[in-house]
């Protein structure tokens, strides 16, 4: 329990550190939301400095950080100048779409990758393993960006999948089951791209972890006792190989908000990715900060969950602490 408390405290400090660093960077940044305005000849420099003052940007760093923390506590995450509204609700609105995409993709990737990796490890040295390694390496070498563009072009050519968006325009009028089918239909393309990106990483880790476990004496013993192959692989070798996989799973959870950024931008998925990119282009730092902080919270939480799971499933760690 002490171990967990220490980990949680450590995460909290990490979060505070990241927030101060981000805020510092944001305030040191040359140019802000109003610098684009100053290009317009009709807007005088007096107007702009009045606007800046109105937004409270002329206060010292500590005061601005303090009011930002207060606004985070309220759930506002600062005031987005481009939207003219608190950043928190705008970002929250987009999280659902991103999570729908990444949770589906992460689940699918793990469901495929674990048996794939185990099977590949079990047939080490045979042509099956060799082929699977080449396939995984090819997947890994095909840039996600390119795959997204190619699939999008194919979809546009054949009309088999919708392009962009989360739902059809008439989705509101559909029945529940039809709406579900509509969503799945829209999900298929971006999920396929994401799975193609995640699958090889996971499968390669599973393969090497299980391969290592298969080399240990207890597996030889189990085999000598006549335990069936499938049971040996999934009940004996896989649990023993779990340690690095749990860490990887934590990372999977942690990147739920960030893994799909590029893909979202390419396929026009209404999630955090396009919002973040637009905010960067508009120098709308409240949104940028909110998105960075939220995805950081996810990453840290993912690591924490991995630690918890390790504590639960790996007796060696429990004994040590």
């Amino acid at each position, binding site marked *: 329990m002490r171990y967990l408390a220490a980990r949680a405290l450590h995460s909290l400090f990490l979060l505070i550190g*990241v927030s101060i660093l981000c805020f510092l960077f944001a305030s040191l940044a*040359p140019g802000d939301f109003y610098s684009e305005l100053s290009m317009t000849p009709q807007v005088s420099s007096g107007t702009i400095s009045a606007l800046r003052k109105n937004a409270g940007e002329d206060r010292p760093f500590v005061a601005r950080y303090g009011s930002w923390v207060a606004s985070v506590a309220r759930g506002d995450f600062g005031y987005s100048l481009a939207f003219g509204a608190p950043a928190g609700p705008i970002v929250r609105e987009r999280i659902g779409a991103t999570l729908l995409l990444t949770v589906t993709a992460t689940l699918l990737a793990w469901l495929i990758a674990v048996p794939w990796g185990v099977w590949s490890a079990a047939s080490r040295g045979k042509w099956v393993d060799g082929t699977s390694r080449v396939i995984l390496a090819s997947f890994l070498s095909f840039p996600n*960006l390119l795959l997204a*563009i190619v699939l999008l072009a194919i979809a546009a050519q054949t009309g088999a999948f919708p392009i962009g968006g989360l739902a059809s325009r008439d989705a509101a009028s559909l029945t529940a089951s039809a709406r579900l089918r509509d969503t799945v239909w829209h999900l298929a393309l971006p999920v396929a791209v994401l799975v193609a990106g995640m699958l090889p990483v996971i499968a390669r880790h599973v393969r090497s972890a299980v391969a290592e476990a298969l080399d240990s004496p207890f597996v030889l013993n189990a085999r000598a006792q006549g335990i069936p192959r499938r049971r040996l692989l999934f009940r004996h070798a896989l649990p023993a190989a779990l340690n690095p996989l749990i860490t990887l799973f934590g990372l999977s959870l942690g990147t739920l*908000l960030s893994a799909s950024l590029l893909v979202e931008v*390419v396929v026009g998925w209404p999630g955090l990715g396009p919002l973040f990119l637009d905010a960067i*282009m508009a120098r709308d730092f409240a949104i940028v900060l909110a998105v960075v902080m939220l*995805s950081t919270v996810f990453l840290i939480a993912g690591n924490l969950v991995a630690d918890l799971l390790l504590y639960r499933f790996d007796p060696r760690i429990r004994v040590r602490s």
Partner: protein
Amino acid sequence: MKAAVIVLAALHAAILLAFVLAPYPYADQHRDYPYAPPSHVHFSGARPFVYGLAATAGGYTEERSRTYPVRFLVHGRLFGVDQPGVLFLFGTDGLGRDTFSRVLYGGQLSLLTGLLASAVALALGLLFGASAGYFGGWADRVLMRGGELTMAVPWLYLLLGVRAFLPLHIGTGETFLLLIAIIGGIGWFRPARLVRGIALSGRERPFVQAARGFGASHFYLLRRHVVPLTWGVLITQATVLIPQFVLAEVSLSFLGLGIGEPVPSWGNMLAEGRQYYAILEHPWLLAPGFALIPFLFGYLWIADGLSAKYRST
């Protein structure tokens, strides 16, 4: 693995020699030939030649009446055709620029960004990691805690976030240096942690202890005994980091936050693919994306080979 090294070296050499291999300079605009498809190279006997290209309402047709032989070592280039003939091996973009030439030139920026950023990351990683592990104490704690901050933020968000806080509109040279600094400055922590582990255990190795007993200075011990222990990790990390950093440059330039026109990089060339209908009409615009694949595959293969090698020893 040997094959992968040879292929990669050849690909890098091709990119490096873009100014000889590319038939046209990267900014050359053939205004009469926007979105021209890849040229068909014909052979009469062993001599390659192309037909003249004529724009029609629906696209381009070959003019069988005019032929231009592909000549080698002309105009200071490896191959090309005489004016007014044109040779577009991968077609042209909307401004009539030769995609093949631009893929070669674009590779220079993309690969150089990856290579230099990895050099920065590895140098920082070696410096901080080795001194943190060797000296220990508060320096170790500060460096490792500081590095954890960069690991706490998702990689692409960190990259974009740092980029967001820097000026948007700056010259190509400055952007290039900025990209290297950002990517390398963000990526140093992973190699640093690995180097630190080695330095930590290396400090206790008998031969290091012996050298210390003979009165060797800290600097001598680090340079002569600790740093050489880390070569294996550094080389393996380089093969992992370079493709990752090349992809980082491609992603940033693709999103319009990296190297901008008219200088080509694989990222800003691919940005034309953000309009999928442009890709449908002119699939050859994806050439820079496909050019990435052999590089990524080669580096992956070498990284696998290296990590297997260093694990077994």
